[in-house]
């Protein structure tokens, strides 16, 4: 072929490809993947990655509720596991939330529910500002108001996807 100084190196064999060092998956990223693929993770609880942040906001853990005095005001945050509004309970809604230390049971009176329907009914991670109610060994948190923490939850894994927790609603 005239005009070409030398043949193109089309058949010279594969070019040397420089090794690529892929960044390992971050742990919180892996947890997000776990939740998206199987609905659970054996690594760490998603809320564990937010603990430092929650602590600066003054939130206690679910496990710490066991040591809280009756009537003490506090806030506790977690993923919403169960929403329940039994017909026999005069319009009271019960929420169960979970963090890396355990679960907490929240009581939402109708007045709070009506003010915050959307948060109660749709949000996957909430913070409950309320006070402890003890009946023997049974502990509930009576909710004064609820905070939508789904934006915070989206920070886990840093890719903006929210972990979908399968919440179960019961009557």
């Amino acid at each position, binding site marked *: 072929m005239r005009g070409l100084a030398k043949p193109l190196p089309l058949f010279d064999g594969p070019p040397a490809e420089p090794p690529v060092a892929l960044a390992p998956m971050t742990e919180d990223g892996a947890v997000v993947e776990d939740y998206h693929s199987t609905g*659970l993770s054996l690594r760490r609880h998603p809320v564990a990655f937010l603990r430092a942040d929650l602590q600066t906001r003054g939130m206690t853990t679910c496990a710490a509720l066991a040591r809280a005095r009756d009537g003490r005001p506090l806030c506790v945050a977690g993923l919403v596991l169960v929403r329940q509004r039994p017909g*026999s309970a005069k319009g009271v809604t019960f929420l169960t939330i979970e963090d890396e230390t355990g679960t907490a049971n929240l009581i939402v009176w109708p007045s709070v529910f009506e003010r915050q*329907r*959307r948060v109660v009914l749709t949000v996957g991670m909430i913070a409950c500002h309320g006070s402890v109610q003890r009946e023997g060994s049974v502990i509930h948190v009576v909710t004064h108001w609820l905070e939508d923490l789904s934006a915070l939850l989206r920070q886990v894994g840093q890719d903006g996807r929210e972990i979908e927790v399968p919440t179960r609603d019961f009557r």
Partner: protein
Amino acid sequence: MRTSVPAAPYAELHVTSNYSFLRGASHVEELLLQARALGLPALGLTDRNTLAGMARAHQRAGEVGVRLVVGCRLDMADGISVLAYPTDRSAYARLCRLLTLGKGRAGKGACHLTWGDLAAHGEGLLAVLLPDEAGAGLDSRLDRLHRLRAEFRDRAYLALTLRRRPGEAVRLRRLADLARAARVPTVATGDVLYHVPQRRILQDVLTCIREGCTIDEAGFRRERSADRHLHAPAEVARRFAAYPDAVARTLEIVARCPFSLAELRYQYPDEIDDPALTPQQTLEHLVWENAPARYPDGVPENIAAQLRHELRLIDGLAYAPYFLTVHSIVRYARDAGILCQGRGSAANSVVCYVLGITAIDPVRAGLLFERFVSTARREPPDIDVDFEHERREEVIQWVYDRYGRDRAALCATVIRYRARGAVRDVGKAMGLPKDVTGALAAQVWGWSEEGVAEEHAAALGLDLGDRRLRLTLALARALIGFPRHLSQHPGGFVLTRDRLDALVPIEPAAMADRQVIEWDKDDIDALHFMKVDVLGLGMLGCLRRAFELLEAHRALRLDLAAIPAEDEATFAMIRRADTLGVFQIESQAQMAMLPRLAPRRFYDLVIEVAIVRPGPIQGDMVHPYLRRREGREPVAYPTPELERVLGKTLGVPLFQEQAMRVAIACAGFTPAEADALRRSMATFKFTGGVSHFKDKLIAGMTARGYARDFAERTFGQIEGFGSYGFPESHAASFALLAYASSWVKCHHPDVFCCALLNAQPMGFYAPAQIVRDAREHGVEVRPVSVNQSRWDCTLEEAAGKRYAVRLGLRMVKGLANAHGAAIAARRGSLCVGHGSIPACPSARAGAGAPGRGGCARLPGSGAPAGALGSARPRQAAAAV
């Protein structure tokens, strides 16, 4: 014919209710009440190709006092529409068979019929041709009229209906002339779609939902006439002043169609195993044959007396075939290795216990047979049997095979609009953006029947000044409760001796090999059909899996009856409220109660199941039983007979049976009266018929020497659980499952976790909490691994005394069972002769995981799969 009121020579025979889904805009009740208010002597319900609303209309018509004419509008594939009214029982059977034929041909929710089908089933049916359907020119109308006349002779009519279009008078005159030429009489009809004019706007919205358009795009798809409501007879007579005969003929049709659903005589299948014996003899034979197995030390005399008592009652009511049916279903399930257990009031019957239908000895538990079968009630008993959820289909198919598809079908469940669906569909039809309707729907609970209130919309920042929004909310509320489609009841079978499709139309269900009648459970009850419930219970499936795992891994052969009774470690666990995943006592409310009630024996669990209502215990909800149990209130019995009845529950009546026993022992009620008392309490909110019993109870108790205020207090206590009373038998059946699952969890948490995960979805908690709980109990849980996992979760050898749970491929979202199984199967074939899967990603193996760690092992080789074991299930899913 002439009636006493000259102004009312008209009955409305052309009425579409909302059982013509997304077409009729009124409930049958509304139509009937409006018909009465307008003075219509009769109402002919003619829904499209269905009798789904007929059973309900039949009941309501009796209450309202309006004569119901059974009918149906048949829309045929060749464009002909006819109103058909059966004149007698056999014509009704033919109509049912005709609809069954059309539905079977067209598949779920549709109906495909031709003129030929109608002609073949037309004997005894009055047929009213609807002449105004699309594409019907004059010639074809005349042609159709001749065919109608030839086929139906004096049972043929032509409908005259006002369309409110230009040239109406001319059109009616032409039709009347045609009819005369064909020697077919005319009849005036209203073609009613709703009971009052105000419903028109909802009807338009229904049209939009049906057509999948918005109200702005609907155009001529809307009904053009706004006049499709019920009219008073005088008004119809005025409108059809030129055709008085056509108006009067409506009453002629009413007179010719005296058929009513009350004529349906339901007959139970015979259940003859041995032709020499009657069903009653067969049942008695079975009972005495099986009794020694339940009472190996000889049948005690009180049991034998109870058996004779029950058999006598069963004989008197001719219910023996029903018991035989349930017995044969349960026997089949046992033989096939399917766990099952009777529940509900059937557990009050020793016959059911002896036949193995239930697992609780009612005599020992002091249960009351009259709660189950009562001569006064004269209504079929209801034996509900729970089967393993996943294998229930086998039982259902067996029932079809045994009784035949023409004699067995499932009840329907009428799926009705609830708040969320209503606001979504109406919002869409009104042209609201999807995010707005979605946000509105999120303001209510999924099951809500109250609708979205204005203030909920305001809370979303929406402008309530907007008319569309306000209309949407109002219309959505009106739509709640409308039937949307028919679905199948989870397991309620109707079985008949003769052809079922002569009683009610049958349609194929969405699931293959299933068929469903057009009526639901309540309709069946009201018409006194017998029903056999084949229900699915997830926990039975979980327990069967647990028993299989125990046998395979621990060489332990167990079943429900063989689980060690009254196990102290199990009760200690229950008292700690360490019951996540356990049947019934796993909810937060139950867990909150467990430490207080502190169960120590099986009967405590029965009480626990019964008294914990959903929702944690608030201060004012603490049960008097608990106060007595905790010693904060004295336990006292005014008389010994009361102590006998209430002794086991510390003097507080907890169960329906106890309420009945109190009435019998302390106030002299007969068992049948006591059952009537229980039933009136369950429904007293609606009927208010309880005061008669109150007087009788208090009078009876004071006459027997009780203080009046004590008698009133007793009545108050009994009245208290009208709304939430639990039959003790039911609580006992459930407590047995609660105990069995607790025992497995306590002694084999690894097995319990594995079985529970494989039985998902069920229960209160999601897999994440089940896994978390297992790990907190020291069970090692290993991640989904493309090299190790089977479809189900499995047990693997581990260091300690427990097995490790290997999560199965079933945990991976979006991975189909077939694909998961293919991964597991392919894995095996690749491994032959290699000992391990090649480390490099192999497309054939579906192992998309990057090749770190080439140490994957054979499944079942014991060791974990190293780095690969920590799994990237997503890639596994993606590789399929």
